[in-house]
Each structure stands twice: as C-alpha cells, then as structure tokens.
C-alpha cells in the first residue's frame, strides 16, 4: 500500500510544471498560435525565479517574500517573452514553428549566460517548502497524497477549473476560441484578432514562466541552464494529448508524472529489467495514448499556425 501511496504522493508535485506550461500552451494554441519556445520561456522563468531570492533574500524571515517575488517575476518574464514571440509571429508574421525553435534556443542560451554572469556556478536556494493543509493533511493516506505539498501545487491545480471557466464561460475565452478557429469571422464581428492573440500569448508565456519558476524554486531549489530538460516540449505534446481541453491536459500531465514516479519506484526495487526502458516509460505512454486516443469530435483549432492578415482573403 505504501508503494502506491508514495507513487501518487510524488506524482502530483512532479506534474505541476507540465500542467502549468501545457495549460499556458493551450491558451496559445486556442488563439491559433503554437509556441515551441515554451521550453526556453520555462528556462528564463526558472532563472529569474531563482535569481531574486538568491540575490536579495537568502534565508531569514523575509525569505518567503522573496521566493514569492521570484515566482511573480518568473511569470512576468514569461509574459514578456510571450509578447516578444507575438511580435515575431503576429506583427512580422514569421513562421511559427521556426520562430518557436528560435525562441527556445535564444531563451535557453540567454538564461544560461545571465546565470553565469549574475550567479556563477551551480548554486542552491532554500526555495519554497511544503504547506500542510490543516486537518486535511492529517487524513490517513489522502492527506499524504493530496494535502501535503507546496503552495504552488494547489494553485496549479486551481488553474484547471479556472482556465475551463475563462475559456468557456467568459467573453474573453470566447474571443480566444474564435480567433483560433475562424479569425476572419471574428474580425468581421469587430474582434481585434491580433490583440486577442497577443493577450493569449502573454497568458501562455506567464504560465510557462511560472512553470519554470516552480521547477527552480519548489522542485530542484537550484538552477542550471539545462534543468528544463525537454519538459517544455512535453508540455506542448500534452496539449495535443488533451485535445486543447484543460481537464484532459491535467490528466495527461498526471499520467506522465505518475508513470515517471512509478518507474523511479520500480527501479529501486531491483527488478531485473533494463533501466533504459524504465526511463522511457512515461514518454512511450504519452506517445501511445496520443496515437490511440484520437477524439474526432475534438479537432485542433482550425486556424492553428496560420498568421492572420485582414487584407488577405483566406
């Protein structure tokens, strides 16, 4: 029983960075833009998130304030980078795929360079500790699985219903979906397509930056320029996995992370099985699910990847 409880209790915090980044990417894609630079924005968010508590608030009573300032700064930098990406693909109408790869390379490189300049070598920080929810964390089994994590875990999972509400119950969510599905029709109704897309990119970037800051402040409690290690690309894949639906994306992030937690636990049991296959397990699981779970009712946003030009008839 402990074996299963441990897998579940660890799988949930492991999923948070993926969940935040993939929900952010969902907003991007819902507006018609895919941002392969997600990985890079996460790297910058991780660096900025770590830099603030490292440089101004090492330890002491005020440490927590600086940690949360780091979280906010990570999200703000992410939003800013989302807007920069918007200038490239919306204003200058660059190809989104290539621009995203460029964004990823630039941000990872910039984060590493800035890190070396401002911090130096690998450094750890106190980071954000666990927050045990009173009473609930004392419930046997469930308390350990659901209510004994750091505060960002709870916030990340609150983003799921919040994004469902924003996307499907608010006028802005409707506009985001409209510009990602049929931008010309949205434009004819007076919606400023490019402005909505910029807004969605800012939201997506902020969540990717937040995901990065989570990794450096809550999970690793340190920074290195290779620490994102492909998680940004997995987040993009999870958007397809979840058919652009926040709840399904959450299940995808949990599936990946629980598989990760499971393979780590199994490796430790000394089962005679090549560890390389165990390490591959989460990735294989996501690919298989992507391949076999095609929901014909849930098509990708029709205008995904297509730049909008109101002077052109498309």
């Amino acid at each position, binding site marked *: 029983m*402990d*074996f299963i409880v*441990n897998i579940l*209790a*660890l799988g949930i915090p*492991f999923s948070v960075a993926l969940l935040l980044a993939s929900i952010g990417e969902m907003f991007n894609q819902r507006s018609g833009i895919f941002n392969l630079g997600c990985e890079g924005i996460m790297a910058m968010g991780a660096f900025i998130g770590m830099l603030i508590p490292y440089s101004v608030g090492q330890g002491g009573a005020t440490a927590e304030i600086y940690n949360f300032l780091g979280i906010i700064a990570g999200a703000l930098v992410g939003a800013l980078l989302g807007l920069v990406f918007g200038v490239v693909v919306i204003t200058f109408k660059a190809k989104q795929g290539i621009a995203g790869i460029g964004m990823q390379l630039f941000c990872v490189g910039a984060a*590493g360079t800035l890190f*070396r300049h401002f911090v*130096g*070598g*690998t450094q*750890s920080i106190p980071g954000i*500790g666990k927050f045990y929810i009173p009473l609930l964390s004392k419930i046997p089994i469930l308390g350990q699985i659901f209510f004994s994590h750091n505060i960002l875990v709870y916030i990340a999972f609150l983003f799921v219903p919040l994004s469902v509400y924003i996307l499907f119950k608010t006028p802005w969510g409707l506009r985001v979906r409209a510009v990602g599905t049929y931008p010309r029709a949205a434009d004819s109704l007076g919606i400023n397509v490019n402005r909505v897309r910029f807004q969605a990119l800012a939201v997506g970037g902020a969540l990717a930056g937040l995901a990065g800051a989570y*990794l450096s402040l809550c*999970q*690793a*409690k*340190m920074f*290195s320029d*290779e*620490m994102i*290690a492909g*998680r940004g690309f997995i987040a993009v894949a999870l958007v397809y996995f979840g058919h652009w639906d926040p709840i399904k994306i959450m299940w995808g992030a949990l599936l990946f992370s629980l598989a*990760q*937690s499971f393979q*780590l*636990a199994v*490796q*430790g*049991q*000394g*089962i*005679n099985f090549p*560890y*390389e296959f165990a*390490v591959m397990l989460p990735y294989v699981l996501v690919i298989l699910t992507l391949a076999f779970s095609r929901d014909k009712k849930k098509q990708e946003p029709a205008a995904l990847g297509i730049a909008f030009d109101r002077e052109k008839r498309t």
Partner: protein
Amino acid sequence: MKKIVALSLMLVVLSASLFAQGGSEESAAKEDDGVVKVALIVENTIDDKGWCQAMHDGILAAQERMPGEIEYSYSEKMKPVDAGSAARQYVADGYDIIIGHGAQYKNLILEMADEYPDVTFAFGTSAEVGPENVVTYMPESEETGYLSGIIAATISKVDVLGVVGPVDGGDAARYNRGFVLGAKSVKPDVEVMVAHTGSFSDYIKAGEVAQSQIKAGVDVLTGSSQQALGALRATADYPDEDIWWVGQDLAQLKMAEGQLKCVAASSYDYAPVIVSLVENVKNGVKGGYCVPMNFANGGFIFGFNEALSDLYGSDLEDAINAQISEFVNNPNSVDWKSVDYSQL
C-alpha cells in the same frame, strides 16, 4: 592598375611570410621556455561541482605543482558536434595537449589524433589504450564507492540505502557497484535501492529519484556526476530527519546543503594525471597509454564533513583510513563487476 595588383601581391606575400615567421618563432619559444599548452574541452561548466570541475581543479593544481610550465585554456558547454571546431582552434593555436573530458569525445579525439600526430590528445573515462598520441584515463571509482558504502551502511539506522545513478556505465557504474560492495562488507543484509535518471545533468530528475527513495524508506543516499546535486538538494528538504548523503565530489561539502546533509565525500584528483601527462610530453612521449586513477597513485582524495562529526565516530574514521591504506597497498581489488542489481 598593374601597380595596384603588384602592390597587393607584395603585401599578401609579405604578410604571409611575417605570419609564418611568427608561427615558427612561437614554436621555437615554446620549446625553449618549456611551457606546455594544455586545453580542456568539457560538456558542462568548470564550476559544476562535479565531473568537469574536478578536471579543471586538477589542471589548476598541476599548474601550482609545476609553476610556469603549464599554460591552460578551456572551452565549456561543448557538445561533441561542436567540440571539433574548438579542438581545431586549439591545434591552430599551438596547444600541445588537448583533453576531451568525457567518453562522448572518444570518436572526435581519435579522429583528431589521426589528423594531428604531433599533438597529444586525451579523453576519459576509458580503459582502452589508444594510438601513440592518445592518452586515456580511467577512474577506478569502485574504490570511492566502496568507502561511501561503508559509511552509508554504518550510519544507516534502517539499513536501507539509495543510489541515484546517472547511467549504468563508465565510472558511474563502477562507483555504484563499489558502493553496494562497501555497504555489504559492513552489513551483509543491508538493502540497496539503485535507480538511474538516464542523464548526467538532469538535476530535477535526480531530485525526483531521491524523493522517491526517501519515501520508500531510504535513510542514506549517494550518487555521482553533476546530476547528483539535485539528489543532495532533495535530502536537505528533510532538515530535522535522519536522512543523509555521501558525496562523490568534495565541492559538495562546501555547499549549504552539503554542510547540513553530506557526511563525507570523495573526489577525483586529476592533478597527478595532468602532471604525468605534461612530463611525458616534455620527454617526447605523446601517448599510447592509459592512466588508471585510484588511491594508490593519488587519483582520489577523501574527506569527512566535520560539521557532522557527531554522526560518525572515530571508529568509522579509523575504518575508512584502514580501507584507504588497503587500497593503496592493493589497488584494483574491488570486484565491482560481480554486483548484480537484480540480486540486491
């Protein structure tokens, strides 16, 4: 027009001869002043508190031991595909020894060695003996792992230990298996959980492995390569619990979480390797040999964390010192290949 062409040709010839002369003068000066130029190429950074830093520190120590005899440069963040251009630049700049620090540079080094027979190339970890201008080095890290295993098993209260491995190969495989043997030498029934991240640099995954093992009941962990810092950091999340770390780099002892959780650590000391490499090059021996690194030839150093001296007694210190003496007298005596993780 003809005058301009003639003048241009003359300038080209003049400048070419000037540069050629400068190059030969430089070569002559190098032979005269006895300075050996050493270049290091690493995939991470020279301050990664792990694999790359150990080599960098070793070269700096060798410079101190041979004052004025070693000129040193390094290139960081070099993927094997990028390292070729850096290595060629070093050759063009007259470097005598070029070290590709990692087995991933093997193909590049062998190719370059063939192309530039007058330059000495080195790479590791590898026990292979290469061409006559290639030097390999192989840390016999089962010795350091064995010491870590003795410490871990001795201080463990629950007799369940954890190993956070990067990959099951090279010196990491030797270290991890040595750890198992060391632990079993103290407590034959001790349980050792071994898990690999599949990466040398994924700190987050190493932290996840450590958390998974701690949740499963492990109370003393170890790990090698730079990714191990993530696991060490994870142990610091249990400041008031008896969760401990045994390190594979002395730099970890100086970190805040190392001071808190790292009981002891061992390091590779590359200084003897570099000193012998430089001396051999000076004596005209460019390569064709492998340098094993062990306690007997000064390839390893070991230290306890004095801040945690209450945790280990003088008995454990004596046992470790005795084991190091044993390694010095009988190197290569740990049968690390005998360890089968599925039998643990």
